[in-house]
């Protein structure tokens, strides 16, 4: 897929407009996973907007977003960066064989208190 088409697909899927960003950096300032990210929320917005999406598709940062909606809530321009991150992540994991975890991975990290919610949430975010 060429750059322009991929940008359009992601923006349409996310339902938000990266052009509205005024680069205040509040999204990254409030992100609880900021320290773990190679590309931070404000960079996601800019890179999607400029069509520089390939590096994002291959970045671990896609899987660091906690879906806590802090950046969605606190963005003063309604750009809602988490929706763009989610849209890029789907482009990555929808590819054949790109699932990030399998049921075989589960026994290694569960303990007797692990809530089902943790497993279903992880599968929802990391697999297709």
């Amino acid at each position, binding site marked *: 897929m060429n750059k322009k088409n991929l940008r359009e697909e992601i923006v349409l*899927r*996310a*339902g938000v407009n990266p052009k509205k960003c005024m680069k205040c950096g509040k999204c990254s300032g409030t992100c609880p*996973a900021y320290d773990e990210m190679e590309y931070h929320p404000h960079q996601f917005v800019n890179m999607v907007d400029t069509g520089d999406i390939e590096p994002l598709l291959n970045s671990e940062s896609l899987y660091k977003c906690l879906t806590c909606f802090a950046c969605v809530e606190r963005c003063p321009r309604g750009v809602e960066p988490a929706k763009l991150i*989610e849209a890029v992540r*789907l482009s990555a994991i929808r590819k054949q064989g790109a699932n990030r975890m399998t049921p075989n991975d589960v026994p290694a*990290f569960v303990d007797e*208190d692990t809530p089902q*919610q943790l497993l*279903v949430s992880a599968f929802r975010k990391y697999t297709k």
Partner: protein
Amino acid sequence: MKFSYFPGCTLKNKAKDLDMYARKSAEALGVCLEEIENWQCCGGVFTTSRDEVATKLSSVRALKDAGSKGQGLVSVCSACHNVIKQTNHAMQTDKEFADKVNRYMAEDTDYNGETAVYHYLEMLRDVVGYDALKEKVTNPLKGKKIAAYYGCLLLRPGTVMGMDDPENPTIMEDFIKAIGATPVVYANRNECCGGYIAMESPELAKKRSNAIVDNAKAQGADMIITACPLCKYNLIKNGADIPVVYFTELLAEALGIKEEVNE
């Protein structure tokens, strides 16, 4: 007062107590929670993408089922409530998405977000009323200093969830007052515990969870309450040294029916 009730996967397993205390307390307050037949897991996280249809169908089916009985839909788990509420909002506001869902389901009637969705706390505040709740309290939890932990899912996105001010909420603090205890307000009460990152990066979940517990303790809390099984797990797993309990447990205790539930 009768509502459709969506318990969710965790409340049938690791968070049975969250469920049982909620049901018994509702009964004591004159609210009938009728469990939806054949409900399916909400999936734990709302997928914001507009082309994600299949992952939202379990919520739509539950909403539609409640609507067909003319009932509002109540859930207790923060995640279930977040997923169901956001799905309902998408069905109300995104015509293209709703059309896709309705064509996919291919049922006789369409669904466009008509069902009212309540978190259990909203049901307590808006339907039962905190004043009426106060009158039913037989065992007020006097002297307890309790920190309400909202996490992310109950409040955000604020325009969709509509439960409370997403940055300065009071619904849980008012609940704590209604059961006779003293609420402790602290800065991190609506910050994330790390959620599902506990699987991939336990150290990040630890950092986030500790920031919440330390903050609550520094403000003088001797207990934390939550509505979310994953928040509870993360806080306890990462070494909380004050009790972290479900709000429904304290509700049952205040209503004097906690022992009854455990029999």
